[in-house]
């Protein structure tokens, strides 16, 4: 039984990488076969994640009164258990035992939606890659490596493994932008690489700081078991007969240590600030580069403008989510003290990104740049939703608003994954035909390409946060939650709905409405093809489904989010005793 789970999880992560190796040895020239193989791989990975998503047996409750919960064993191992807030499908094998580094994978309500989003968007992006005609083999190999990196980041539970996947995904992305990109591709690729690398280095420093401060022997037996450390702890003694700390990269254990009353991360490090504080700051900078948040966002517009369409889809749809995921998975649980202290900073950066991104989007002339800035604005909601530490003494540690904020942030990540990937694809469709992206040189597309325009407008409306489409839910939850944290901040955040409407409607007007097309190559404006519809329609359909019935997604998320928030609220409460 266990073997199945190991196989399933490893299949999801490593199938693309293995396929990439296989593609390497395939002869050149058979480009369609190569594309087909890559496509099949992404489909298989997506199918595997969908198989997990089909809800299995749910947690049964023995009785009404609170007490220990009887968790029934899920009849099909590998299937996702709705309502279980803990890690599922855990795979834990030793990798580099000397440093306690493990091959440690798992999914829960926070990571699983992102995993399935990744596999879904990878599939669509591969389908969108059909128009790539240069160095097809290399492209597919790099694309598949990228997929492995992304999935690995979302599934890794060992901090070191997480870091490795994080860096693994960096190189393929660099080449995908640098080789298949637009005219300024080298500049964009290097900029992307350097920015992300800086984030990676900061993360590495924080990683080592946390590792060397951690001590598994401080955790109780039960706590260790909760972190899936089931073997007995071997504690060696130093020369002066004090027990030597047992370091770990286990992210769950790090979180457990970060939240315990006498946390090992509370040790002062520099300038009166603790290890945890510095780790939080380093990780926070590292993750908001990826998110990206103002003022560390300028790599994004360049990378998007130069990247080929499918890579833009992946970049906006998945890569940006890693920043938010890292904050949610690592920063908050591991360093709650710093997160509590710096909640204002997180929220302020979030609101700044929302406003600044929306304003900058309004000023753009390049279609792709505009969409890129809209991403900055939309990802600001994620930061704000995460940051609203509203379970404080003044609210008597009421967690409702914060749960809402964090669920909203997570929902916003998925929603933005769908809508931004869709928008970039829609820009790509038109770019493939007329080879320019100048917003002032479009117009009248509704006449020439009615189906395309209808789908585009639908996806743009999803980004605008129209009710009934996915963008609304996340924004609404986050903004509502922000009020309990800080009223002025919430009001500024709410005002962004005006700016968003402004730049999106203006874009729609300039591109789709109007009497005639104003730019060059007007004769090549052919109707959208079936392949393109097959990519855009699922995105719009999901945007509608999640907009009308957000519970479909929230059911996966809320147990874990609530659990996380509850733990942090209890931590806050302890702080006040």
């Amino acid at each position, binding site marked *: 039984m266990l073997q199945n789970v190991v196989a399933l999880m490893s299949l999801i992560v490593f199938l693309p990488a293995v396929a990439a190796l296989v593609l390497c040895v395939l002869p050149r020239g058979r480009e369609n076969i190569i594309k087909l193989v890559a496509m099949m791989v992404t489909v298989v990975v997506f199918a595997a994640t969908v198989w997990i998503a089909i809800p299995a047996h749910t947690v049964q409750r023995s009785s009404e009164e609170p*007490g220990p919960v009887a968790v029934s064993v899920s009849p099909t191992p590998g299937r996702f258990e709705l309502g279980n807030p803990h890690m599922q499908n855990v795979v834990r094998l030793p990798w580099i035992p000397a440093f306690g580094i493990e091959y440690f994978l798992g999914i829960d309500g926070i990571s699983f939606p992102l995993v399935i989003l990744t596999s879904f968007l990878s599939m669509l992006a591969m389908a969108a890659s059909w128009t790539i005609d240069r160095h097809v083999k290399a492209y597919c190999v790099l694309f598949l490596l990228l997929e492995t990196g992304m999935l690995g980041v979302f599934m890794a539970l060992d901090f070191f493994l997480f870091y490795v996947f994080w860096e693994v995904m960096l190189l393929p992305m660099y080449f995908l932008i640098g080789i298949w990109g637009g005219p300024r591709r080298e500049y964009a690729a290097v900029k992307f690489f350097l920015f992300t690398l800086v984030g990676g280095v900061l993360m590495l420093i924080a990683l080592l700081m946390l590792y060397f401060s951690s001590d598994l022997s401080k955790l109780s037996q039960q706590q260790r078991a909760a972190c899936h450390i089931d073997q007995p702890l071997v504690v060696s003694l130093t020369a002066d007969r004090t027990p030597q700390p047992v370091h770990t990269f286990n992210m769950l254990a790090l979180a457990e240590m970060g939240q315990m009353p006498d946390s090992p991360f509370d040790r002062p490090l520099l300038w009166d600030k603790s290890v945890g504080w510095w780790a939080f700051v380093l990780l926070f900078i590292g993750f908001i580069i990826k998110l990206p948040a103002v003022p560390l966002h300028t790599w994004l517009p360049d990378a998007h403008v130069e990247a080929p369409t499918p890579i833009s889809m992946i970049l906006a749809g998945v890569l940006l989510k890693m920043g938010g995921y890292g904050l949610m998975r690592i920063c908050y649980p591991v360093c709650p003290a710093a997160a509590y202290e710096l909640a204002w900073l997180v929220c302020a950066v979030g609101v700044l990104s929302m406003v600044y991104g929306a304003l900058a989007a*309004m000023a753009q002339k390049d279609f792709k740049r505009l969409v890129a800035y809209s991403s900055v604005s939309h990802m600001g909601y994620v930061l704000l939703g995460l940051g609203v530490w509203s379970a404080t003494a003044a609210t008597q540690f009421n967690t409702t608003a914060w749960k809402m904020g964090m669920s909203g942030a997570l929902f916003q990540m998925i929603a933005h994954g769908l809508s931004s990937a869709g928008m970039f694809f829609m820009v790509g469709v038109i770019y493939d035909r007329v080879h320019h992206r100048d917003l002032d040189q479009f117009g009248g597309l509704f006449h020439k390409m009615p189906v395309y325009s209808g789908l585009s407008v639908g996806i743009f409306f999803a980004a605008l946060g129209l009710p009934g489409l996915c963008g609304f839910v996340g924004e609404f939850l986050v903004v509502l939650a922000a009020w309990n944290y800080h009223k002025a901040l919430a009001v500024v955040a709410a005002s962004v709905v005006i700016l968003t409407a402004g730049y999106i409607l203006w874009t729609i007007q300039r591109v789709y409405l109007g009497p*005639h097309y104003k730019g060059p190559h007007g004769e090549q404006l052919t109707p959208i093809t079936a392949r393109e519809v097959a990519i855009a329609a699922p995105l719009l359909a999901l945007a509608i489904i999640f907009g009308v019935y957000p519970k479909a997604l929230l059911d996966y998320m809320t147990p874990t989010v609530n659990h996380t928030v509850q733990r942090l609220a209890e931590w806050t409460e302890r702080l006040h005793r």
Partner: protein
Amino acid sequence: MADSLRWLPLLLELAWLLPLGSFVLIVFFGPLMGKGGRGAGWLATAAIMCSFVLSIAAATVWLSEHPLVHSSARDGSEHDCGASADEHCPAVAHKRAVPAAIFVERYVLAQFDQLRLSVAYWIDALTVAMFCMVTLVASCIHVYSTGYMHEELHEVTDQQVRTADGTALRRPGRYCRFFQYLSLFCFSMLGLVLAGNLAMVFAFWELVGICSYLLIGFYFERRSASLAANKAFIVNRVGDFGMLVGLMAAWSGFGTLALGDTTDAQGRLVQRGIFSQVRPAEADYRLTVPDGMVRMAAAEEISAMVANAHARRPAGEQGQFVEQHKATVDQWQSAEQQSAAAARWQSSEQPKAAAAQRWSVERRQPAAEAQVADRLPWWRSQGYGYWLLVIAGLGLFCGCVGKSAQFPLMVWLPDAMEGPTPVSALIHAATMVAAGVYLVARLYPMFAPEVLLVIACIGCLTLFIAATIAITATDIKRVLAYSTVSQLGYMMFALGVGGWLAGLFHLFTHAFFKALLFLCSGSVIHACGTNDMTQMGGLRRKMPWTAYTMLVGCLAICGAGVPLVVGLSGYYSKDAILAQALSFRAANPAWGGIVVVAFLGAGITAFYMFRMWLMTFAGQPRDKHIYQHAHESPLVMVGPLVVLAILAVVSGWPVPGTALSLESLLEQARPAGAAAGLDQGVLVAGLVIPDEHLSHENPVFHTSAALTAFAVSLLGVLLAAVFYGLPWLDPQVIRRAFAPIYSLLVNKWWLDEIYHYMLVAPTLRLSQLAAWLDRRAIDWLADGLARATALVAQLDDRFDRLVVDRAIDHAADWTYAFGLRLRRVQTGNIRQYLMVLAAGTVALFLLVSWFWR
């Protein structure tokens, strides 16, 4: 709940969803439905007519369970509220009783502890009446549209749009798209009416906005249309931003967004809704600041209490804390999981989740919570949180300001006339723009007196500004648009001064006569091909049906009638508003000025409406060419006109021989305690919103209102006749005499220009600044860093070559040279070697002995 009432949610739900079905079908199969999509029109019309039938059925069910009593309105002298007839006397009974309403939760979209975002219905007499009105007007307009939009059945040549090569644009017809949007709109509008919680209200609020956007931009090739569509949506978003702030305040204050109380399957109370929190029966339905708002305002005090509670914990207890804590943590976690599971399972599990939540809170903060609960009433009496309630009310009203085109967000509605005329009639006159008024009426219980005062002032300002602009407008649809804005101002004003029923009553009568007026104008435009009234004239001879139905509309909007005896629908509703205004003036003399403006507005209304009618239909044709081509519209267009004209006449009357009238039906939904003279202003001292029944019961208000309004309106009509009917006076003369005022009015008070320079342009400049900052500051820094690094690398390289390499080269050269020199030592002479060896040995010994001394 009576058995038949169980069917009510289902009936209305069906009526609501039918247009959605029609929308979906037309999206996928529209172009396949007959030639040019003709079938789409029939489908959409059939759907909305079925909705109308279902709404009527719902109304019947409602009335069968809630029989009407004689309305107290209109004739105060007849009314006698004796003690014996207490329960039959709305004036007294409704002050104390909660109006009959059904609150149903259909399904939960998301749940966070007690907060549930759900699809819920709030059904009362107002809902039912709104359903009937919306579906009836929409049915008329659908039928009318099948005629009006027939050009869209085939290829259209749009003379207003030039393509790149200068010819008029030819495009395929969009008949089915029109009906597709119309169906979506009906669905959204009905959803808005049916909504049982504020989140759902907000969702449908935005949806009607987007439908409006799509329909204003129906002729999207025209730049003016796409600009107007953008303007409408963005200006509405400004209002929605305020509404969002109101929602935040409401949510954090009430802990729920549901209007009604949530009960579980056994009928036990789970969560109190907004209405019963803000006007609890315990407080005799007085305005009460909810606990959440009081707590929020007292955050500092609570914080201190929590700290104190922990500080006072005995020392022994501190030590045991960890164990206790662990035990309780387990319990909380399981409670937590339980609440999550309950959310997942079914709504009937909810009480447990809520109970678990409360329980955990109680366990955690027993001491502090007890203290806080003790202090709550005192804090409340000190006015804690009252300002939050005011913010919530003002915020929600902001949304209404946007949607109902009130000052200062009124600028979008006149531009919205770019849409096809049936759209203007349905969305921008009868239903969507009235949604703001509807929402104010719906949320009436939660508005503090200060908020109502703001509403009254805004309404008053709007009705005056819009009416004055209408005087100089020459576009027939724009006259009607400004008149709509002005009438919406009347409704808001009525609600603000306490005329809950009066405002709503006017909403209904206005819906009928304004839809009629718009459809008539559509008929005229259809016949003339222009909107410009200066090119019309004398058209009553060509299109009598249109002319006289429009005359009925004009009379209705002026409130024509024989004072105190009988009148058209507008007579009753306007009269009720003005009577209430007088009552308000009597109660608050300091604010009496706004009442005068309202009367003035009635006169201006009469003037510009008759100016419009006379310019269009009376006198001599101004443009022969247009006059010759004008013709009466076909039956599908005239039919709805007649239906609406009849409604414009009779909708204020009771059904003969029964108590059934619009007023008595609406009276059933009057919120308990609201505007009943119970609440006093806190921030504005001495402010009282008078009980609406006072204005009915006191014949003085009523008589003086009726007579004054009649006189003022008559004056307006006569003035219009003097200028445009008879014509004794040339308007040009007046125009020249009052040039500054004319210029103010014809430029629409320069509102558009002010907004452009004050808001739009600065925002655009700000956005340029953001883009500039990105390129010139942040990127400059990043690129500069990169360049600096490259520079350092170059320096490094130079250092390597000039210093390190050179040093090594020198070292090598030196070593080589040294080797060369050393070579000379290697002479091959053994004696010399031995000598050096001996000397070396001696030197070594000397050295060693020196150091190891």
